């Protein structure tokens, strides 16, 4: 092996257009600094592995199976889609599609049903990424005859043998995933990358809300934006808060109220609406939320 031989690492990165995806990830996703850093590391590692390969420094193909942990609505699925894109551009998966499944898609209902079902899903995911949401449901310790274990065994086998055919990403809440891994050590040891998704802060959520509104071709008027900020502040402290997903739902309800407000306007002698009115969410649309029903000492209103 000639140690002085060089390879154009920049060309590999440029040809794969991977920086484009990474920049897009930076631009389009708010917050998530540790996740983005980790994904950059993985992308760099993959590019270097390819450079090594082109110089004949053979190594076993890198294990790319990952585990995304975090609370609901922190962007695990979105990042998985981007991850598939990155892996595809760097040539680690051939097709780059994502097959998103849950327990129901993998585990059968009677003896002999699980294996074909799991295999079918695995076949569909070949050449891409298999995203298993709420993966901890696969293992149900309370029922020793549960078929989930069978599904896990098939998954493990394929994760090991078909490493260059598909990448498996498991996702779920952190503590439950930890329990899952401690009872399935084989699974834990086959997953190289554990990425934890932090919760969003209030300003981050507001910025996400702004982007969602843009994407829906609506806009906030001045007071509405402040109202949204207050809404998020209150919603954060409530149970079942699901980060970006809660924000999306709140916006959907605000659109509903806006539509209702315009509708009511017809009866009050305003039959014509402007495009501006059709696309503006006002503070009243947001303040009508149930979140504001209870008086909150932390809120200055």
């Amino acid at each position, binding site marked *: 092996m000639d140690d002085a031989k060089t390879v154009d690492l920049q060309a590999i990165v440029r040809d794969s257009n991977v920086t484009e995806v990474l920049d897009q990830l930076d631009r389009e996703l708010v917050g998530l600094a540790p996740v983005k850093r980790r994904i950059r590391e993985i992308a760099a590692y993959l590019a270097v592995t390819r450079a090594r390969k082109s110089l004949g420094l053979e190594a076993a193909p890198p294990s790319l199976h990952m585990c995304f942990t975090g609370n609901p609505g922190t962007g695990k699925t979105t990042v998985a889609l981007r991850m598939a894109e990155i892996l595809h551009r760097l040539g680690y998966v051939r097709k780059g599609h994502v097959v998103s499944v849950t327990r129901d898609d993998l585990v059968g209902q009677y003896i002999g049903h699980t294996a074909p079902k799991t295999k079918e899903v695995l*076949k*569909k*995911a*070949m050449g*891409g990424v298999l995203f298993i949401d709420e993966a901890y449901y696969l293992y149900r310790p309370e029922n020793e005859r549960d078929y989930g274990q069978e599904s896990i065994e098939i998954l493990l086998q394929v994760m090991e043998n078909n490493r260059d055919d598909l990448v498996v990403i498991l996702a779920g809440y952190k503590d439950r995933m930890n329990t899952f891994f401690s009872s399935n050590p084989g699974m834990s040891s086959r997953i190289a990358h554990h990425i934890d998704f932090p919760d969003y802060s209030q300003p981050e959520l507001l910025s996400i809300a702004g982007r969602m509104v843009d994407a829906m071709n609506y806009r906030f008027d001045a007071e509405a934006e402040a109202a949204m900020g207050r809404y998020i502040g209150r919603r954060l402290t409530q149970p079942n808060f699901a980060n970006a997903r809660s924000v999306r739902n709140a916006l959907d309800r605000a659109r509903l109220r806006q539509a209702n407000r315009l509708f009511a306007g017809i009866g009050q002698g305003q039959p014509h609406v402007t495009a501006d009115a059709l696309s503006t969410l006002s503070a009243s649309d947001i303040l009508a939320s149930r979140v504001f029903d209870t008086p909150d000492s932390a809120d200055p209103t």
Partner: protein
Amino acid sequence: MMTNYNRRVTQGQFSFLPDLTDTQITAQLEYALGKGWAIGIEYTDDPHPRNTYWEMFGNPMFDLRDAAGILMEINNCRKTFPSHYIRVTAFDATRGVESPTMSYIVNRPKNEPGFGLVRQEVDSRAIRYTIHSYATDKSEGERY
């Protein structure tokens, strides 16, 4: 179709060529997937040319994106039936077409005895001809 050229059954595509390698099979599968055809794996131990319907190995595979999964299934089938004929068929489900578009053998027995010509004397000493696979003289499962 009915000859036993080189002691090889020649049915379907590519059957006059040497056996396809896994890489070549993958390329053919990718072609079929690219056209949006569903792929099925079938096996039999009765190679008579009029035996059109072979047993299916598993379900036909719809909605696949990559050939690796199909190749995995082909290898499973080879493991289960190492000395049967195994063929891959591609099916075009487009309305108005709904028929197989590709069919080729991916596994064959080591020794293929071929076919014999059978003459049957019927009324007025007329002769009826048919072909008969030597393999089917044995019972199912013991043929190859």
